């Protein structure tokens, strides 16, 4: 089970309602793109959903949430800290086990940055940092992905490669995207957010970029 059915989602900031109340129901296997102007409430909606379904989802937030002082390896490994006993995690902090090492390295190869595994997150470029956060989400191996602009700092071919990977690895996903073409190509359903409300909700094959433009 990796879908969800949430009602009455709403959030206020400084006394002002920024989103909702709205309902969002996503069936297992659906790839949802959240589109809309910046400030429309996409990030807030992703946060709200994450709070509701926490244990199910892998999250890639917009600010990535990397631990800057730790190398890439540990930032990725953190995606599955719950899978190991404390002593195992402590040892890994000092010296990773070969098995985990291989797994993380393979994952980083798919994201085209295997050579960065021991570099501290602080000294990576914006695009590399974004891929580390994605690697962490992939490493967690949950069925549901919640991502907020996960490829905004990546160049064209790399963005496509990552979106393809995300589509293939996660059964269900909700991804906030400002790039309408990417949304139509890699998602099965488009949800448009405007002024904190759902203004559009259609399968991608029924839509063209022109249908989405009014939201911006």
């Amino acid at each position, binding site marked *: 089970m990796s879908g969800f059915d949430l009602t009455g989602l709403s959030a206020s900031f400084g006394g002002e309602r920024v989103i909702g109340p709205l309902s969002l129901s996503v069936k297992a296997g659906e790839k949802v793109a959240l589109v809309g102007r910046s400030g429309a409430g996409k990030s807030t909606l992703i946060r709200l959903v994450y709070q509701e379904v926490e244990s199910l989802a892998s999250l890639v937030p917009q600010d990535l949430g990397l631990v800057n002082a730790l190398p890439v390896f540990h930032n990725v490994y*953190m995606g599955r*800290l*719950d899978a190991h006993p404390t002593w195992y995690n402590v040892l890994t902090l000092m010296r990773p086990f070969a098995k985990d090492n291989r797994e993380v390295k393979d994952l980083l190869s798919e994201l085209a940055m295997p050579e960065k595994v021991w570099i501290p997150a602080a000294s990576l470029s914006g695009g590399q940092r974004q891929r580390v956060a994605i690697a962490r989400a992939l490493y967690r191996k949950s069925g549901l992905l919640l991502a907020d602009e996960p490829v905004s700092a990546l160049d064209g071919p790399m963005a496509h490669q990552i979106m393809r990977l995300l589509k293939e690895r996660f059964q269900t996903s909700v991804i906030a995207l400002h790039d309408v073409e990417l949304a139509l190509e890699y998602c099965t359903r488009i949800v448009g957010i405007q002024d904190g409300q759902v203004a559009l909700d259609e399968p991608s094959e029924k839509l063209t970029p022109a249908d989405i433009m009014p939201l911006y």
Partner: protein
Amino acid sequence: MLSYPTVRTSLIFTAIALVGLLFADIAITAANPWKDLGRFFLGVVTPDFFSTQGLATALLRTVAFAFVGVALGSVCGFLLALVYRAYPVRIFCAFIRAIHELFWALIFLQFFGFHPLTGVLAIAIPYSGIFAKVYSEILEEADPEPGRLLPPGTGVISAFLYARIPDCWVQIRTYTAYRLECGLRSSAILGFVGLPTLGFYLESAFSQGHYSDAGAMLILFYVLIATLPLWVKPKLLPVYILGAPFFLGDGMPIVWGNVTRFFTEDIVPSPLKNEEGWAGMGTWLGDVFVNQALPGIWNTVILTQIALVATGLIALLAFPLISTHFGGPIRRTSGHVFLVILRSTPEYILAYILLQLWGPSMLPAVVALALHNGGIIGHLIGRQSSSIALRPDAPTGLNRYTYELVPRVYRSFLAFLFYRWEIIMRETAILGILGIYTLGFYVDSAIQNIQFDKAMLLILITASLNIGVDILGRFIRRKLALQTMPTC
């Protein structure tokens, strides 16, 4: 000008200090102060490194007590920082750090005697309180986002080690290293109450007029502190920490009977011990308050306020010495050396030296506090002023100082000054042990007269006074929207 709250606050504090001067006992009572000062400086420039065999041992003990005390303090402080959110923990930490190292030493001396534990605990206890506060502030400022992203079900320890500690580590390490320098100073002055560190040998060299020996000790102490980054390396740290306990010396064995007696008899207020009931207690309290606490508080507050303003003046005068906006490299280098000497010399040692030379009054204390604290703030402000970029046609000389630099650094200057207010008061109280009539004098006299109940009460009063000034200082900093990093 008067419309600036910072200027108004400065003027109010200056006025208080000027009024305080009317009541303060400021005088040079020594018969021949300048001749003695001359002999002292002659001693410093003709140091004799080989006359006392004790010198090397004293330095070794000073370093050993500093390492063990600071290491223990940082471990306890770290554990306390984890539960610092709890209100009772905050109160407890504020309380233990409000009591000066020397007071802690005086307390432990009464029941542990000259056992190494006395010196170690005297440093470790107040430092735990300070570490707890600063560590918890560092941990709180860390980005909470990585922690929120961890999969639910992650163990508390794993989460802490991965998501919290790594990004704080550098700051924690820097602050702990900085505290080690403070620990060396604390360790040195513990000698003044009889522990086998530098202060002990310094005091005996002075009392015998061996100024060249004293000069050698001071010079070695400066070298020790100035070269700290060279010999304290992360890789060597475990060696130092594990080795240090073996160099504390043997001291005297602990008599456990004394420990029991101290807690069950000595510190019980005498009217309760003599079963005079609450009426007797009232008389006793009244007596302590009128004859010791009130005069002690009065003198402590007056001296603190004068020293605070004098510190500010010294800092404002001293910072151009190291600022890149004035003078050439030679002047700056000598300025750096001068400020390093000022801030490496504990105010207690400065006050002791000046007291020997000028005779007892508040003057040596004010000068010592102002020089040491002014040196610290001057160094920080000077460094900050060097990072200010002036326009190419900026005025030079006094105009540059008054129009370009002072207005820009004044807020952080005040922030540091009010941060150090509580530190200055803590030191003022302790200088009483040297014979100035602040709270420390009455504590020390009570201990001399074997009235530990009275001494404990006076120490508690001193601690409350420090906590009060700390709160007031923080209130003023908040009111003026001043921010600062901790200094010691």
